[in-house]
């Protein structure tokens, strides 16, 4: 009884009522699964506001928010991050993801990177919403009626981190001491280095040549590492720059080598009892999306996002793309080709589908926000004129 989630009715007749009320039946099924797989006490795991399945944070609040309303990456799903060009924005996303895992005491497995990579994880600032001024403002304006919905995330933006906000509401200590409820997502500083007791727990899986095919070795080591850990551990599998020829041997980019690996990885994540997520990055300049191989990698992954950084020549455009001078100019476009769970079901009903996203990487955060086109370039003098006071006076406008 004590393992039952509070918001479930007492009736266990899910099977009987299922035909009458299919969605209620599902709700029960998924939330019992969620309750089973994700006790509320696990740090860094919370039920999705959409359907209650356990999710974990990617370490980037705004990325959590675009993942089809789940407020995070659902457990058991893979996210493929593709990047055009020679920049390493995807690497920053991966570092946040790994650092979030370290801070939450998740087991982080890093494939194909030296320990140097783990030492360069960004330093912890604090819970994500503590950094955000807007969140603070919202805290003051909070409507008291909606307290029980608030923990499920805010409508529209800001799903991630709302759990933490509700946490300190439940503990209204006057001196504002940090609450006991753990934060779901943290903010990190790319210029600092993460120092955390559990950072030594990173599991590095080097690419060592052996008699077996490379990916078979990786899969076996991942499998063994996950199997040998305590059952409730949450795992994060980090695979930076998959197939990059400076890391991976040439033959690994053959379809019959990498696709079985991704398939087995998917199988591993879907194994009952295993609680893991994976994030993979791939350089699109070397493996274009127009190739059949990459398309199959996308088909096997649960979520696919593509980063298209603006070239440097577009700096002017980028600057003017910021709506106000206070906002940082976007550094590139982000395309969501596939979102976990949503597209598997058939897709389409998410409010964020079809949005144009732009991303900005600053020292402290990777922010994804809707992209808006800048004003037409040719209209410079018109704008300047407006600023320099050629606007008609108020008196002229009155009738």
């Amino acid at each position, binding site marked *: 009884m004590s393992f039952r989630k509070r918001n479930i009715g007492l009736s266990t007749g899910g099977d009987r009522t299922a035909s009458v009320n299919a969605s209620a039946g599902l709700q029960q099924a998924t939330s019992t699964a969620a*309750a*089973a797989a994700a006790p509320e006490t696990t740090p860094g795991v919370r039920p999705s506001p959409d359907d209650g399945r356990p999710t974990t944070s990617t370490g980037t609040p705004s990325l959590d928010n675009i993942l089809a309303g789940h407020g995070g990456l659902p457990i058991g799903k893979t996210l493929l991050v593709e990047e055009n060009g020679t920049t390493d924005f995807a690497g920053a996303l991966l570092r946040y993801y790994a650092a979030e895992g370290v801070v939450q005491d998740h087991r982080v497995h890093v494939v194909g990177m030296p320990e140097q990579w783990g030492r360069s994880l960004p330093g912890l600032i604090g819970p994500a919403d503590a950094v955000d001024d807007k969140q603070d403002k919202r805290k003051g304006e909070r409507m008291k009626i909606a307290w029980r919905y608030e923990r499920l995330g805010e409508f529209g933006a800001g799903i991630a981190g709302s759990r933490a906000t509700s946490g300190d509401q439940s503990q209204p200590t006057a001196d504002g001491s940090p609450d006991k409820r753990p934060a779901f997502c943290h903010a990190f500083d790319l210029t600092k280095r993460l120092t955390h007791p559990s950072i030594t727990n990173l599991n590095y899986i080097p690419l060592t040549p052996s008699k077996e095919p490379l990916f078979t070795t990786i899969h076996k080591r991942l*499998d063994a590492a996950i199997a*040998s850990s305590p059952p409730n551990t949450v795992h994060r599998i980090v695979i930076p720059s998959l197939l990059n020829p400076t890391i991976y041997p040439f033959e690994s980019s053959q379809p019959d080598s990498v696709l*079985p690996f991704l398939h087995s990885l998917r*199988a591993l994540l879907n194994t009952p009892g295993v609680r893991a997520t994976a994030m993979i990055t791939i350089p699109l300049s070397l493996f274009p999306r127009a190739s059949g191989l990459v398309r199959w990698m996308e088909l096997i992954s649960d979520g696919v996002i593509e980063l298209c950084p603006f070239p440097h020549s577009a700096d002017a455009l980028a600057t003017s793309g910021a709506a106000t001078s206070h906002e940082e100019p976007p550094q590139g476009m982000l395309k969501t080709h596939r979102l976990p769970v949503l597209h598997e079901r058939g*897709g*389409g009903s998410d409010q964020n589908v079809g949005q144009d996203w732009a991303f900005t990487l600053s020292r402290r955060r990777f922010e994804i926000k809707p992209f808006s086109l800048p004003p037409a370039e040719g209209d410079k003098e018109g704008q300047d004129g407006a600023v320099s006071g050629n606007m008609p006076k108020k008196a002229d406008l009155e009738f």
Partner: protein
Amino acid sequence: MPTQPPLPPLLAPYVSSLPPSSLIVLSTVLGAQGNWLTLRYLYAALNASLTSDAALSFGEGHNRKKQKVVLVSFLRGWEFWRAEAKRLGLDLARLTDKRQFAFVDGLSELFAGPRTTPTPSTPQTTTQTTPPSLAPSPRGGPVPQRTILPNRSAPSPIPARGPAVAAPAPFAPVAPSAPPAAPASREVGPVKRLHLSGKGPAALDRLEKDIAAVVGHLNGRAAASAEGEDDSEVLLVLDQPDLLLAATGPGKEIGATEMTEWVMGLQQYVHATVMTLAADLPLIHNASAAGHQMPTPLETEHAAFAIGSAHRAHLVMQLRDLDTGAARDVSGVLRVSKGGAWGQSDNTDANGNWEEKEALYFVQRDGGVNVFGRGE
């Protein structure tokens, strides 16, 4: 937009009453996955109340046979299908128990083989291997109980029923290639797991044998249940078998020809076959000569398999993204077109219900689907 029944009226003629020995190809793309449509096929075949309705409305009430379904999924696990079918009101675990449905798992162990886990030190694996009746014995606090909870609905028939314990016995002689004891003891219900080993057609033959064993198992049960044979027809649903082709390739001597023969071989065992294939642009068009770079073997073989299958199919259901970009109230476009084998079947009354059309569809949050014409 009003809510439509689980089987939208526009869709109903295409998913129910499939002609004998027909092949239906569902082609999907990255942004428009066909799982909802696959589920509609399951629903049409397995939902008893619906089959009688459909028989009435299409005026072919003559001896409608009981349908059974074998679902072979290469990209999605049992948990996904069970949860999604539940949203439609189909209890796959119960149907499995009633021998109306069988799931063949092509995800878990296709390439990796059985998990190398059984280290008895961790309570997690021990609880998984023991039958649920014994599960509470390793008292490791609440933790082991939680880990087995998701499995609960599926394995329950094993200890609960008398005859089900004897199930592996008739099952084993049909599938001599399968190790009989190992899967039965650690399976989530009577789920068969495929494992690809070896090379070329021989490896595919082994998979075919495994699937045929499951089909035979369903059929055999029906025949033994007193009504005599031919009282049920089995629908085989192959979910993305093209993964096999993509992930093996010429290195393993599996090409489009071998795959086509494999599917044809499977068709022999069943009444009708539904197959989902990826038809993304790079997978189909890179192979053509118009491409400005050399197609890779993956692309040529996939295109050959997909196009060849479409030519052999009676009906091709294409799903694709909306041409004008994503929208909030449209998930994608469904195009129904005639396959190469259109009209070749003897049973023409089913073909009479089929006409080529294009419609939009929208998958709602609750799993319901609306299929509607443009502008409706």
